[in-house]
């Protein structure tokens, strides 16, 4: 251990106590990356600078202490909670970084069933919070596939979105207030109110900051009645994606808000629906939920819209409800995926973008065509739309490739980055957004200036104002 590393560890031990500073080499290596470099990880190859330590914080005061220490000594800090990041946000791009882990801050502080809000620390897994509020007949309405694994801090920091977003919104629609610590140790609290007009909405400086401006220590989210008994599941096959997007648009534009509104293309759909969908067809899925009258009216409205499109054919609703019950990813699926990749060299990657109704089909078609034409060793390329809005929708590109003729450390440069480049180029060409919900991380920073255009000025300003010494997650969102 170099003197510098030793000094950093000593400083952290002084703030947190010796037991809360991890320096085990294997853990440090695993803490230098996230799922963006999972192929390297599975093969035990680590190419990123190894952090000096993982600091396990137990309180806001400890977070403030660590940040103050890091800020004073110019040490890069990577915030971490659930470790499900997919875009390189957890990579320690700078030698001797500190990974500041908040998973031990795992207390649910309040469930206020009258005012319909719950407050918890950053390290509470969403599944734990959801299970607790369900005991009160309530739900957070947040249901990302990583619900069993991701924590409230990370979910807020990445502007995550769940599978029920068309009704409940993204995390930004759910957060009413938060507590965050800035690099100089300043603790800020934004109070929980229904709405206010007291200048800019400063929650949005914090939500989505990916650990580049501040450390989120506490969040308060809205709650909703949990009424699964009213859920109505609808599924249809459709001949083309173009018609599928049109149906989604009509549902949104006519004012219906199903919780789930999804469109799978034939390749992606085959992974889930081959047991009931003929080859070559796309699949539309809706779930209507809420109070019985609203769920019924929503389902009827959707059925009437779909009936206008003769190429849509309804499938039995139990196919959809059965599929929906097995969507989330827990540790079992993660373990199985690692074994699959190790044995076959075949890896699944995703890139999610968004665009308005006028361009989303062009983004989908052009990006997919280019991926298939330009990238070698592709075994599947497809995608789905899973989050719709009045003015457009997202496209979640889902693709698999065999990693051949290269070492684990070349997988990202040979395959993943070129595919990201194609998707980002096509998305930007049509005026869409290059990231819909996974966060920019480090993976998609090459295109961030083009994404922001003239508004990059504001992003840079935020960084300068809140992290003047540049110690917060170097290389994430803003290129190193």
């Amino acid at each position, binding site marked *: 251990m170099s003197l510098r590393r030793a000094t950093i560890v000593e400083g952290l031990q002084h703030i947190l106590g010796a037991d809360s500073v991890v320096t085990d080499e294997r853990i440090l290596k695993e803490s230098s990356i996230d799922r963006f470099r999972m192929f390297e990880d599975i093969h035990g190859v680590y190419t990123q600078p190894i952090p000096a330590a993982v600091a396990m914080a137990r309180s806001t005061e400890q977070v403030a202490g660590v940040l103050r220490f890091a800020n004073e000594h110019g040490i890069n800090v990577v915030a971490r909670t659930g470790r499900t990041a997919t875009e390189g946000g957890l990579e320690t791009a700078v030698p001797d970084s500190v990974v500041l882990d908040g998973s031990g801050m795992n207390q649910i502080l309040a469930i206020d069933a009258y005012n319909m809000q719950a407050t918890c620390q950053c390290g509470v897994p969403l599944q734990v919070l959801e299970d607790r509020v369900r005991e009160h007949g309530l739900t957070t309405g947040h249901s990302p596939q990583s619900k069993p694994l991701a924590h409230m801090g990370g979910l807020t920091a990445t502007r995550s979105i769940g599978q029920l977003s068309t009704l409940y919104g993204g995390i930004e629609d759910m957060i009413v207030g938060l507590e965050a610590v800035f690099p100089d140790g300043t603790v800020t609290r934004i109070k929980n109110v229904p709405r206010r007009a007291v200048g800019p909405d400063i929650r949005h400086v914090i939500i989505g900051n990916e650990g580049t401006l501040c450390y989120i220590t506490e969040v308060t989210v809205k709650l909703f009645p949990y009424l699964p008994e009213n859920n109505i599941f609808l599924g249809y096959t459709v001949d083309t994606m173009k018609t599928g997007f049109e149906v989604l648009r009509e549902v949104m534009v006519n004012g219906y808000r199903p919780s789930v509104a999804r469109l799978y293309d034939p390749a992606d759909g085959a992974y889930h*629906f081959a*047991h*009931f969908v003929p080859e070559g067809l796309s699949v539309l899925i809706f779930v209507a939920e809420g109070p019985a009258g609203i769920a019924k009216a929503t389902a009827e409205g959707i059925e009437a819209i779909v009936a206008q499109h003769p190429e849509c054919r309804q499938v039995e609703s139990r196919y959809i409800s059965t599929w929906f019950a097995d969507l989330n990813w827990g540790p079992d699926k993660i373990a199985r995926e690692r074994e699959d990749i190790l044995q076959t060299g075949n890896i699944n990657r995703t890139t999610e973008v968004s665009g308005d109704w006028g361009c989303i089909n062009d983004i989908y078609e052009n990006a997919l065509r280019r991926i298939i034409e330009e990238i070698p060793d592709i075994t599947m390329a497809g995608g789905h739309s899973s989050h719709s809005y009045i003015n457009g929708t997202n496209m979640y590109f889902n693709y698999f490739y065999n990693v051949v003729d290269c070492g684990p450390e070349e997988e990202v440069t040979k395959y993943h980055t070129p595919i990201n480049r194609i998707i980002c180029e096509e998305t930007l060409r049509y005026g869409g957004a290059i990231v819909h919900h996974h966060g920019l991380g480090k993976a998609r920073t090459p295109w961030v200036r083009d994404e922001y255009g003239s508004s990059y000025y504001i992003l840079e300003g935020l960084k300068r104002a809140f992290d003047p010494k540049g110690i917060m997650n170097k290389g994430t969102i803003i290129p190193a």
Partner: protein
Amino acid sequence: MNAVRILVCFKVTPDYEALREADWVAGEGGGAHGSGAAGGGTGAASRVETRYVPRILDCFDESALEMALRMREAAAGGTVPVELGAISIGGKEVERHLKTLQALGYERVTRVDTDADLDFAPTVTASIIARYVENTNNTDLLMLGWRSGPHDGGTVPFLVAEELGWPCLTQVTEVVVLSSDRVRVAHVVDDGVLRVTVRLPCVLGVGNAVVARLRVPTLTDRLAQRGAPVERVQGGDLGIDVAAELAREASVLADLEVIRRDRPGVIVGGESPREKAQTLFDSCLKSMIEKL
């Protein structure tokens, strides 16, 4: 030198792990996996309803299919050519798996076309496979997963071998082609792993092999094989009346019971990892060690 002709049998089964607990109800299902209405051979409503969950390759069959590909690769540098065939009994759901196998280099792929539910009918399954092998007379080595799902008793490899009069080894974990009429086989026995050299023809039931996943063909591989023929065979072509055979071997699912394997968890408290480790040792480990 003569080629070693390998035929791998595989089954496409419902993904039982995708069944919700509430769906494990005896008497809901209509019979065949492909569609409830079309099945019914063994008495409709005698099954768990599985048609709402995806179809997957059974894991032992998947091992067998990948092992055969690797056997060919390992033998390719040498003097022994290996030809690969695959066969499955089932409805349309089997086709996409056969196409995948073609893209991976299987030369002969065959579907014995039936929507009948053969889940509890190992003798019917074995007869179909044995008749096919006899009729085509072009198989030296028959490989199957040793069992294909929670409903399967692991008897099919033995029954096929008996019908063919070939030797049979099960719990196979490794196979190497030595020559055009010999293979070296590792298989698990009661007290370890036995390695034997077997003269062909023979039947191998693949068990818990290290090679457990089938590789994935690229889109280019698939394109190259588009339109390649899939052989389709009816029970009648093999001299078997599947419905009549099933009626003789009819079985009815009488009851289902959930086996709970959950164990109570205890969170060990303490101020520091050292204190927690000490508590864990005092409360659990110490007494276990003392018992040893």
